[in-house]
């Protein structure tokens, strides 16, 4: 019992050394107080207090100042602080990015249909060079699908300019790696009577060279609009040279490499925001 209460000689030596300048006497008083409690230890205590301070004792600190500063700051140092901040920041970054990834995954999963896809599906159309284009040509790449018509007064050209910016932002993004799927921009006309392949070719070349323009018969267009849940109001029997407008939905549809719908991008998104959304999904793709 008594041994556990009395501090070891060496500890006392070190302690008293640190306080040598100010209150070296206090050790004696403390010691004496201890001795009153345990008379058994009186002998040893007296021997400590009476012993001259040795200069050869092992000292963990070179100077008194160093030890004092160590004493004041306790276990905290700039190294510990830095480690704390970097690991904290790292964890915050990790959880944020993981949260964003899970959110994107949730969106992508929620829109994925069971069995038959809810949006999208098989189709056969004609591209602006006159070659057939089917949903199989979209496989292996993310595609950004937009519905419109070339005689559109103001919304489609604005949206297509935005689309061109998105394509460039996505394709030049520094986050891309060799395995990142590429983005296929597709424009599908809602006005097949006027938008022949050659008309689409002339129209789309003004916006972006990568754009693929698709057209077909009125029935084919009606079918794909139904599959993509696009509202359109093109009359079926139009006379040549007739001047009319087509009402249609204005969304960009992001489709994944397996042909599943991922997310819709609307007019409220700036090209930068849209590119961020697209890149988020594209970079998530692992297969």
């Amino acid at each position, binding site marked *: 019992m008594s041994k556990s209460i009395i501090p070891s000689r060496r500890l006392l030596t070190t302690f008293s050394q640190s306080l040598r300048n100010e209150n070296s006497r206090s050790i004696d008083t403390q010691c004496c107080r201890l001795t009153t409690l345990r008379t058994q230890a009186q002998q040893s205590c007296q021997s400590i207090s009476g012993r001259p301070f040795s200069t050869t004792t092992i000292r963990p600190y070179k100077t008194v100042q160093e030890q004092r500063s160590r004493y004041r700051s306790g276990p905290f140092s700039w190294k510990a602080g830095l480690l704390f901040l970097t690991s904290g920041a790292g964890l915050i970054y990790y959880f944020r990015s993981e949260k964003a990834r899970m959110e994107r995954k949730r969106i992508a999963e929620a829109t994925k249909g069971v069995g038959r896809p809810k949006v999208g599906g098989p189709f056969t159309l004609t591209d602006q060079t006159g070659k057939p284009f089917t949903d199989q040509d979209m496989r292996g790449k993310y595609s950004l699908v937009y519905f419109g018509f*070339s*005689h*559109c*007064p*103001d*919304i489609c*050209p*604005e949206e297509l300019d935005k689309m061109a910016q998105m394509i460039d932002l996505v394709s030049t993004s520094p986050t891309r790696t060799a395995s990142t799927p590429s983005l296929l921009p597709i424009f599908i006309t809602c006005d097949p009577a*006027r*938008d*022949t*392949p*050659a*008309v689409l*070719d*002339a*129209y789309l070349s*003004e916006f972006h060279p990568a754009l693929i323009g698709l057209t077909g018969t009125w029935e084919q267009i009606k079918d794909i609009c139904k599959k993509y849940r696009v509202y359109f109001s093109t009359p079926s029997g139009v006379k040549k*040279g007739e*001047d*009319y*407008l087509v009402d249609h939905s204005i969304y960009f549809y992001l489709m994944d490499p397996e042909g599943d719908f991922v997310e819709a991008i*609307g*007019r*409220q*998104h*700036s090209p930068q925001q849209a590119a961020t959304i697209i890149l988020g999904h594209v970079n998530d793709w692992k297969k």
Partner: protein
Amino acid sequence: MGLFGSAPATLPPPKISSDGAPIAPDRTQRAKCWEGRDAYFSCLDKNNIIDSITEKDKAEKFCSGEGRKFEANCASSWVTYFKKRRVMEHQKNETLEKLRAEGAKQVPGEMAPPGSFGQRP
């Protein structure tokens, strides 16, 4: 309109593509049309005309010059569309003002970006 045959208020015939269909107005033609539209609408603004279709006589009286330029640079379906959209936007802004006056607060979030369609002052 004039007695001495002023410039016809029609669009020049469109270019024909290689497969025989008329090509839609290109970027410069669109810009020209929008310029004509903006000039016409600023004239309507000056004369306090909102609906140039129902107030046709008034619009014709004050803005006939601008109107003819507008029609000369845009397809007629576009002219009607822009005129109708002007009315629609006016109504929309009025409703928004009314709601704001009643103390409605705009919910922060996803609306059309400023300066785009639907946000024109």
